[in-house]
Structure formats: structure tokens, C-alpha cells
């Protein structure tokens, strides 16, 4: 999916009118069963891009932003998850926005990389303790969902598959047991 197509996917989800997450949370109920009940504004996508780039930064290979993970997450969250997890995801994005601001006095987008890393690593820890007490019918912790989508989006993207990983579309043979040298990248897929 190239960027234009990715945006088209999101545009379809947006249905022409951009409704931001806070509006959704303030009582704009989703349409039942359409899978198009969560909407993301361009600001949300920028935030998702920065969250995923903090986790998976550009190094000698492209990071999450180059792989357009933000737009992928915004396209996937509304259609991949059930209602309670969609709500968890959307509320989580707002929580990240607000909690970061409260903690550091400026927005996540304006945060130092070290602040962002601390913040997200703490969230990752929070997921673990949440999962230990989570009841079966409770939603997933929003950051588990974000991490899942960020990883999926990155590792299956063209940049992630072909540059951060090694992708061979048509291997042509199977060697079951070959040497692995430290530093060799994993196979994509």
C-alpha cells in the first residue's frame, strides 16, 4: 500500500468528515456493526506516527514514520478491533496526549526523545500489571493495542520488510539449517 492508497483507506473510514477523538468520546456513539465507528484527525495520525517512531526509530534503516505506521494504525484500529477495544484505543490516544502534557508541561509532539521513551516504557510496564488483573470481558489496555498495531504496521510495511528486515519475495529453495551470523537481519513474513 503506497501512501496515497493508505490515505484513501483512511479517507474511506473518515467518510468525508473528520471527527476528532474527543468529540467521539463526548457522546457521539458509533454506528453499530459498521466497523467505521472510530475516526482520527490528522493530529491523531501525527501523534501515532511519533509514538511508533519513538518505539521503532530510524537508525541505519528506516523507522516507523518512514514506514507510515501512524496512518496504518489509524486505518486499522477502527476495523480490526471490537467496540470495547476501539474505545480503549481512542481513549488511550487522548490519555497519552493529556498525561504527557500533565507530566512534562508540553505536548508529546514537542517532547524530548528521552521524555517520550520514559513515558512509553512506563506505559509498557503498566500493560503488564493491567494484564495481571484484567478480567476476560474487560478491554485490552490501549497501549497493548497500539504496540501491536505499531509492530504489525512496521514489520509488514515495505520499508520495514525490505530494509529493517530481509524480504525475499520468491526464495526459490529451502535450506533448513544454515549458519546464522550475529547481526544478520531476520526474514520478513
Amino acid at each position: 500500500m503506497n501512501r496515497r492508497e493508505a490515505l484513501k483507506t483512511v479517507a474511506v473510514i473518515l467518510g468525508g468528515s473528520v471527527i476528532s477523538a474527543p468529540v467521539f468520546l463526548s457522546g457521539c456513539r458509533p454506528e453499530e456493526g459498521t466497523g467505521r465507528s472510530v475516526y482520527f484527525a490528522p493530529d491523531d495520525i501525527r501523534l501515532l506516527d511519533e509514538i511508533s517512531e519513538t518505539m521503532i526509530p530510524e537508525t541505519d534503516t528506516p523507522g516507523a514514520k518512514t514506514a507510515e505506521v501512524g496512518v496504518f494504525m489509524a486505518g486499522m484500529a477502527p476495523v480490526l478491533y471490537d467496540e470495547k477495544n476501539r474505545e480503549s484505543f481512542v481513549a488511550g490516544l487522548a490519555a497519552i496526549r493529556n498525561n504527557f502534557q500533565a507530566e512534562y508541561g508540553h505536548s508529546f509532539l514537542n517532547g524530548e526523545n528521552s521524555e517520550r521513551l520514559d513515558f512509553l516504557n512506563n506505559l509498557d510496564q503498566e500493560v503488564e500489571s493491567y494484564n495481571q488483573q484484567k478480567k476476560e470481558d474487560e478491554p485490552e489496555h490501549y497501549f497493548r493495542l497500539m504496540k501491536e498495531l505499531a509492530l504489525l504496521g512496521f514489520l509488514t510495511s515495505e520499508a520495514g520488510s525490505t530494509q529493517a528486515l530481509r524480504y525475499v519475495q520468491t526464495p526459490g529453495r529451502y535450506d533448513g539449517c544454515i549458519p546464522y551470523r550475529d547481526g544478520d537481519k531476520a526474514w520478513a513474513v
Partner: protein
Amino acid sequence: MPYINNKMTKTNSYDAIVIGSGITGGWAAKELCEKGLKTLVLERGRNVDHVKDYPTALKDPWELPHRGRITQKVLEDNPIASSCYAFNESTEHFFVKDQEHPYVQVKPFHWIRGYQVGGKSLTWGRWTQRWSDLDFEANAREGIAVDWPIRYKDIEPWYSYVEKFVGISGNRDGLPQIPDGEFQPPMEMNCLEKHLKKRIEETYPDRNLVISRTANLTQRTGNRGPCQYRDLCARGCPYGAYFSSNSSTLPAAEATGNLTLKPDSVVHSIIYDEQTQKAKGVRVIDAHTKKISEYYSNLVFVNAGTINSTMILLNSASSRFPDGLGNHSGVLGHYLMDHNYRASLGGFHEGFKDRYYYGRRPTGVYLPRFRNFGEDLQDEYLRGFAFAAGASRTTGYVTDQPFGGGYKEALTRPGEWNLWMTGMGECLPYHDNKISLSKEKTDEWGIPQVEIDFEFKENELNMLKDIVNSGQEMLENAGFKDIYAYDTNQPPGLGIHEMGTARMGRDPKTSVLNGYNQVWGVKNVFITDGACMTSNACQNPSLTYMALTARAVDYAVSELKKGNL
């Protein structure tokens, strides 16, 4: 039923009719056409042309809108279809959606279907172990159900015959439970699989781990293959490197000039002629226009898929056979079986960090049956099970790194070795595991819906405990860590090995088909798909269906030539 004119009789007549174009229908078509019979193949679903109609076959992961995942909407709309392991964004167009073809689950039974030219041969697992006399003699030895009317020696040459055309890669392992066949060179095991093999064979002298015999070509065969190791088979293979009706049997049938293939043709029933005591043709409803037609032939092969083949017979009542065509025994619809695939096992291994693999092998390893075989006799259950397994290194599974550059590096390096394992348990044939015509509900074409009444019973559940325990023990013994071994409790049907309901036997009073898959009392009708099975062994069944089909066609055509049909 509709008015029939003579013109229809003439233009709609064929030497043979095959109902269904899946793995056995394709074989029946090929064999009949190659023996010179003008053959009509009726397929209820749409046409699927080899390569041309494989829309996702060459898509890279990032070209799939949801990267292969199925959306919540598709999941909610298809609780049955989406529970199949092979159902995902890149394959879903080859599966029947739940709402398209409803059926009645008297007890939970997930019926996985593929209504299109090629049927489920497009998406099948391709594991092709032969059966042996351990299986064909089992019912007689234990006094279960009825005896198979055939033994291994009857089917052995037909296994060879179909294997040469299908193209089976495998190793000659010399194991009596899964006799060796006509194999192309085997695919290789990876390091962890080789380690598991070594540990199992050292510890248990009567157990073996082998590479699964698989219908993927390791050598070019005709204009097909060889395998390119993409492991995307269920999307349809642009190289024709695995066996399907679309890539293999239907083109061979077509090449004879004797094939007529009619997609979108829903078979309502088989027309029985009271005078001749034979079938004279089939009644067909156009899937879209609902127009009813009749097609005539002196030979009918029923290959609609286990449950649908029997449904057609049940729906073909006549004054001679008020309970379904050929059903004087009363067993038609009974003795449904599926393999018990409920056990899920696996674990991680800390070794072999300096080893990896290249390519994506489209098969796994196979541990043939060892229980109630040789000296290993069990008190708690009859028959036995096999294991399927496969090892790989994880990618993207990182738990011990904070986010950032180090996390990314760990994400993109091969992780721990791990192995999955599934038990494949034999299921006994029970009279009350059955299918029948619904008295209230019909489908879109006015045909009664099927009611499926099936459950695993004590023997299968006792065996399941042993699958979990013995599998866990082998993993522990091979040094695996973080082992899981549990009963998924998934509903039956998901073995996708429906068998029985029109079983073969030696006596017309207790079976539907004779030893050549011929309906007792309606000698020009043959059923050669899974419906014919008298027991279900624990091996994947499609190879056996194919061999039985080629054998039955050979018999039918020789009888036809002798004037006996």
C-alpha cells in the same frame, strides 16, 4: 418437477456426469475424459481459472489492505469460516461465508466449505500420508461399525498412480503405518526439527519424526512447479507448484476435448429411473437465475464433498428409495467422522542460536501413529493419533528491551526457536453422529438445509488426554522451555476431514457403497469423496480419496464397456 421435453434429453446428454470439481471431482473428470467419455462436470460455485483467478497470489504483505488480517466485521459475520486456520484476508475469497449457505448445528460443528471450481483443493493442507492395513483392518479387528471392503493391496497401485500425477515430495522412511510412495525429493527439516527427531527416536524406539509427505513439487512436473518456497499456497499458486483441481486434473481433462465444465450449477437431486433401476441423470438449479435443468447420463460420479454428496442422495427420494437414493440399509447420513484436532502444543528452545534457515517451506514434520501399534497398547481408548509439527525462529517478539534503537534491533533479528504441534486423533464411526435433511429450513434454492448432529465421544476424549500428555512429555524430553499443551476445545468440523455418511462395506444391508464405491442397488452411481469412508484413520485423507476415485473410475468404465452398467 419441471416439464421435460425431448430436445433437452438430446442436447443435455453426456457419457458421464461428475457432481463437484474439488479434489475428487477433478480426478473423476480427468480419468473419465482420458478414457474417452464425454464428461459433464457440475460445480455449484463460480469458475476459478488457474492463475488468472488468484487475485492475491503475488501480493506483497504491504499490498494487502489489512496486511493479511481479517477485520472485526468479517470476523463477526463469519464465526464459522474465520475459525479455519487458512482463512485470512488473502484467502477469504475461496471460503464460503457463513451467511451464504446456512446449515443447522444440532451440536456445534464448524463446517468449512469452498464453493468454486476446484473446491477446497485450492486451500487444502496438502499433507498426503498413505493409509495402511493398520487402518483398513481396524474395524474388523475390533468389531467396530463394519469392515472395509478393501485392503491396502487393493489401493496400493492406485496410490502410486495418483502420486505420480499429483507430485508428492517426501522421504522413503520405511514405516509400516505410512507406507512409502512415489516420492519426489523431500523438503529438508530445520535444525530444531532435526533435534526433536533425534531426541524422540533415541528415547522411544517405536516413534519416528519424518518430513510430511506433501503435494508440493520439488521437481518440475509437466508444466507445473517446482515449488518456490513462498508458503502462500492457499492463495492459489501462480507456479502450479501444489496440486489442485485447477492446476492439475481439470486442465488434463480439458486437454482431451471431452470435458464440459458448468459452474454455478447447484445439483438438486439425482433422477432415478424405476424401470431400469438406475440413475438417468441429475436435476440442476442455476445458482443465479434459479432455472431448473436436467442433464442425462448413464454414469454419475458424486463428488460434492462428504456432507453435500450424502445430502444429494438424501434429497433424491423415489418410490423405490423413499429415504434417499440407495438407502435401503438406513445408514445413509450416519457414521459421520472428523479428526480430533483439539490439542495444541508447543514451546521454545534455547539452543541453535547460530543456526537459521532460508526460504519458506510449505509443509511441516509428521510423527506417525505409535499408540495401539506394535507393543504400545492402550487401555483407555482404541486407535491412535499422529502429530503435525513445525519449527521456526520468532520475529518481532521482544520482551526484554526498552523502546528505541536497541528494541528495533532486537525486533528485526531472529528471536528464539519455537515449535508448534497439533495432535490428529482418529474418530470412531458412531451411528448417532449423523447428518439429515432439515424438515423446516431450506436454502436459497429451495433445497432442505443440512442438520449436522456430531460430537466427539469417550474414545476421542480419552485419546485427547493422551495426545496432550504424550506430546508434552516428548517436548520436555527434547529440552523445550515454556511448554504449552492444552485442549483448545475448538468445535469439531475444524479438522476439515469430514468422512463417512455413505460408507463402503461388504453388505448392502449395512453400507451404501460396495468395494468399488458403487451405490448398492443403483449400479451407475459412484461416490468417491470422503462420504465413502468406513473409518477415518488418523492420516490426512485426500490422497486416499484420490486413489479411490481413480480406482472407481477404472472399474466403472470397464463395467460400462462390458455392458454391465
